């Protein structure tokens, strides 16, 4: 006997729901609810956020405190709820048009900030609620009511956008590959950080029929032809692969912050070699001699400075001179001199 306790997470009294017969959204909602139920996530520890569109209506059928945002803003709302209430698990249920088109900027930045939320994207490659207009994920060449000659542009590759910078969790699955679908939901929910499940789904009424499919099942078979499941964890997924791509840290190690600077005790003034202004003049950096300058009673060795380039003069700074006054009036600070080593004191 199948475990039906997931139904406690759905507002069954609101049924029948608003979606067309054959639509994939019902499968998305049911399977998410089943995994949530298995994991023990409920209205006391979880908040649900959704956007606008057919898929955005999922929030209103779920027995949680649910936030139904304006179009495209689900991710920002979810991130904020997690920020203010770290004790809550936050999931987002929405569609490809909402998340990737009008909410595209938020998708980039919420993933960049690695907000600890899980997104389930019903990716049906069309704007269904408004009547079947081309969307950000509509494949090139597809005829829709706003692309009567076939969509002229390539679709947004969510898999590439969301895996360009670790940490990331991106899973692509479909409503037809049920076991794989549930595995992806479970792994995404358990991932700490931003996790995105791209669910290839069907819109038979406003996309499928125009494409020539008679039933939703024919569309599912088409998904089976277009995609194949890859096992194990990948770094990235090819466009025809269903699977999980994840990385916890950058694949190529970023350079580590440098060793802490060693600060050597400055020699006391008396220990320094005394130099008169006349002595100083000899160290002008010419003919293999070191390049010294005076500053506030001390002599600094600027031989390694790239700025003089073998010349005796660099703008108003002259090698072998006391530059205290010049540096006071210079557009830069004294730090440019202080970083060099002290070799003597002016007497």
């Amino acid at each position, binding site marked *: 006997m199948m475990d039906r306790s997931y139904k406690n997470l759905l*507002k069954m009294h*609101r049924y029948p729901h608003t979606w067309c017969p054959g639509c994939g959204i019902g499968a998305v909602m049911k399977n998410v609810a089943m995994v949530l139920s298995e994991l023990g996530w409920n*209205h*006391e*520890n*979880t*908040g649900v956020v959704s956007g606008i569109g057919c898929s955005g*209506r999922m*929030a*209103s059928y779920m*027995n*949680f*405190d*649910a*936030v*139904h*945002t*304006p179009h495209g*803003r689900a991710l*920002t*709302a*979810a*991130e*904020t*709820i997690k*920020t*203010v*209430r770290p*004790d*809550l698990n936050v999931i987002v249920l929405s569609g490809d048009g909402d998340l990737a088109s009008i909410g595209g*900027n*938020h998708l*980039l*930045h919420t993933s960049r900030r690695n907000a600890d939320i899980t997104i389930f994207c019903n990716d049906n490659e069309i704007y269904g609620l408004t009547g079947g207009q081309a969307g950000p994920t509509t494949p090139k060449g597809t005829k829709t009511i706003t692309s009567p000659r076939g969509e002229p542009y390539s679709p947004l590759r969510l898999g590439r956008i969301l895996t360009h910078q670790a940490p990331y969790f991106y899973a692509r699955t479909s409503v037809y590959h049920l076991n794989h679908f549930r595995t992806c939901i479970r792994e995404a929910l358990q991932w700490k950080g931003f996790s995105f499940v791209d669910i290839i789904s069907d819109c038979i009424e406003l996309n499928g029929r125009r494409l020539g499919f008679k039933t939703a099942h024919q569309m599912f078979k088409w998904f089976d032809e277009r995609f194949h499941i890859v096992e194990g964890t990948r770094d990235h997924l090819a466009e025809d692969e269903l699977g999980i791509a994840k990385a916890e840290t950058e694949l190529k190690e970023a350079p580590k912050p440098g060793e802490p600077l060693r600060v050597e005790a400055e020699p006391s003034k008396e220990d320094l070699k005394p130099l008169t202004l006349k002595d100083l003049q000899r160290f002008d950096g010419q003919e293999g001699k070191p390049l010294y300058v005076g500053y506030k009673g001390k002599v600094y060795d600027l031989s390694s400075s790239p700025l003089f380039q073998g010349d005796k003069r660099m703008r108003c700074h002259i090698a072998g001179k006391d530059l205290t006054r010049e540096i006071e009036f210079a557009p830069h600070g004294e730090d440019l001199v202080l970083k060099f080593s002290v070799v003597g004191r002016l007497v």
Partner: protein
Amino acid sequence: MKGFLSGNEAVFQGALRAGAGYFAGYPITPSSEILQQAALHVEENPEFRFLQAEDEIAAAIAVISASLAGAKSFTATSGPGFSLMQEAIGWGHVVEAPCVFFNSMRVGPSTGMPTQPAQSDLLQIKGGSAGDYYPIAFYPNSVEECFRLTVAAFNAAEESLSPVVLLSDAFLSHLYEIVDLDAIEVATVPRKKEPLGKGQRLFTGISHDKMGNTRTSHPDIYQEWLAELKDRHLRVAEKYPLYDYVPCKGSDTLLIAFGITSRVIAPLKERFSLFRPIRIYPVLEEELQRITSAYRHVIVVEGNDGQYASWVECTIHRRVLRVPCLGGSFKLGAIRHHIEEGIRGAQG
């Protein structure tokens, strides 16, 4: 905190006094100091949450969402950013999210004259978002009042369960005055609304019934909901009948000005009566009708082309003279000249 504070600093301190726990914003002059102060405040107070968002759309959505999640929240912006926030403000009224939107006005439309002061976002408060809603908006004219009215805005938000707008201008935001905030006593209204995770409610921008079920083809449910919303907002607004009236004996002319303009024309109090609305919206109907009835000439001096004047005309059912201060120019000499010319024209 006592010292030489700017309007923006006073607003931030006011928000903290009111119990704010969340700030989201996007840099825009002349409001950025508040974003910066929030970033610094988080360093010492990690329980305060802060987001520098990717745009004002996200900042405004974050503020509403933080409010639903249980924090007193606010944002700060200027005209162009306020335009982007309108979507969220409309949503905030429907999902009943108490929060504060601070708008420091500059010359518009669009990028306008960055960043000369103006007072030209009044119509945006009332009509920037789609549909009918009844916002409450306050407009201080001194640094101390920035502090007091920020607390009042948070209180009105909690009482009306909706976003409240606090106005300022580029002038007032960067005006420094000596204030002793510790000596100011203000009452704060605590959060009553249950935070998220306490039930199975639906917070949706779709028209809905009292149970939170979406109802998209029920005019009676919508009408009942809107009437309740309007009634609640007007009742809360009545608690804040804020204005300043300085009568001048023997004068037959009333000057109406608010925000920085009221400071600029203060020297004219020897010749004219002055009226300063502090609650900008809903318009102070009863007060305006009562006070203007005693004057032959009513003149509105404001940093836009007659936005408040048109509201006054609708309220008192007679023509008023307009003295617009445009392009960031608030010069007393020019204003006085305009006023005298207007009165001569009306008499002639």
